[in-house]
């Protein structure tokens, strides 16, 4: 009897660990398998958001995400990028069910600190449940732009020349759709977001 008790006690700890591991695996579908070879989540991009909180691009694995790039002191296209994304959100069939997550990363690593990002988010009344404005180190900004196919160049006066795109990533971080239509909504892009959201649910 005593032997049996000891055996049970010895088995209890590994069992507990086993159960915890099973529970962890079941509740973390994002980490259940390897990141696909064509996923942006292969790229390590450390980000800091408008609340000063650190996160990695790959933390977004598991949910579809629209990614764009901007900078807060830009007056020409960047407000239009936000406008376009807001209009896109309103046009989603899935809009009523929580919509899609949006991540905008700044080109301007030197001036766009969390305070500047927060100010921009507040002035545009962005819903920070789904929207994130973030900064990254210059070398990481360059790599992120490279995978997104966005060109940018800092000029002498601190302004940036840049191309504009919104890129839809599926739950695994693969590019599902991309639009360079800025200033008005792109029906094909909206349909792709709806389809990707539906496929993920």
């Amino acid at each position, binding site marked *: 009897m005593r032997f049996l008790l000891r055996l049970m006690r010895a088995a209890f700890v590994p069992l507990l660990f086993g159960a915890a591991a099973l529970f962890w695996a079941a509740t973390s579908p994002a980490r259940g398998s390897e990141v696909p070879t064509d996923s942006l989540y292969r790229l390590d991009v450390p980000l800091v958001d408008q609340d000063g909180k650190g996160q990695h691009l790959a933390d977004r694995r598991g949910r579809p995400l629209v990614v764009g790039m901007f900078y807060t002191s830009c007056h020409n296209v960047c407000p239009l990028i936000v406008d376009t994304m807001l209009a896109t959100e309103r046009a989603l069939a899935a809009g009523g069910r929580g919509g899609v997550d949006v991540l905008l990363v700044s080109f301007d690593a030197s001036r766009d600190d969390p305070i500047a990002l927060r100010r921009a988010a507040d002035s545009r009344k962005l819903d920070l449940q789904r929207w994130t404005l973030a900064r990254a180190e210059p070398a990481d900004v360059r790599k992120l732009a490279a995978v997104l*196919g966005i060109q940018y*160049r800092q000029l002498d006066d601190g302004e940036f020349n840049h191309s504009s795109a919104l890129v839809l990533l599926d739950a695994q971080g693969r590019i599902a759709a991309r639009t360079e239509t800025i200033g008005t909504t792109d029906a094909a892009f909206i349909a792709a977001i709806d389809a990707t959201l539906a496929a993920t649910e």
Partner: protein
Amino acid sequence: MRHTFPRYAAALALLCAVASATVARTAEYVALPGGTFESVLPADGKSADAKVAPFRLRVTPVTNGEFLAFVAAHPEWRRDRVARIFAEARYLQSWAAPDTLGAAVLPEQPVTNVSWFAAEAFCESESARLPTWYEWELAAASDATRVDARADPAWRERILAWYARPSTEALAPVGGEANLYGVRDLHGLVWEWVDDFNALLVSADNREQGDPDLLRFCGAGAITLQQRENYAVLMRIAMLSSLKAVDTTANLGFRCAKPAPSENTR
């Protein structure tokens, strides 16, 4: 106690051997002074000179032999293991196998068929980075005796002659004639990746430049190109700005750059 001395001696000898082997394989960099110069890409998008901080540049492009050693140390960059997001299917395709150059590929030839991401990763393994366009252009403006030979028509002709050579010819080994700074092979061997290849933003049509398409380009719009007589350099920009970061070609290699050593580490 009697045995410790030979053991230390052996360890020391081994350490020296490792150190000398490392030194032998360490890439050579030379210091460039930087400065202000007239780039084909104006710094303000209109006419301002480019400013370049002092930096160091690799003397020669990275070779097949060097890249093979990198791939052995970082197997995630083998062509059979690289993530597709970092390199297209033609990555390192001229090699006989993922870990073998083969008879047709010489270790001293510049490595080509490498993506921008692979080039960046190699440079990071040397505690370096890719040079910026301005750094590359500044280094490439000099010939054996002059800081800036670009105004010399004879020099421009010599560089242009390279572009007339058929691209099917086997690439020469690295180690061509040195320029004033001691940098070799900037012209006449391969195209080279730069860190900011996706910053060159050349408009396909010059007529658009007076009327920047604000919906596509924020800020000052498309950059105006200067020095139109400098075709060889303009061709590089046209080629680089047409590339995606995963692209590889049989004539596109790279070299790395480092910041100038700071006063206290010199």
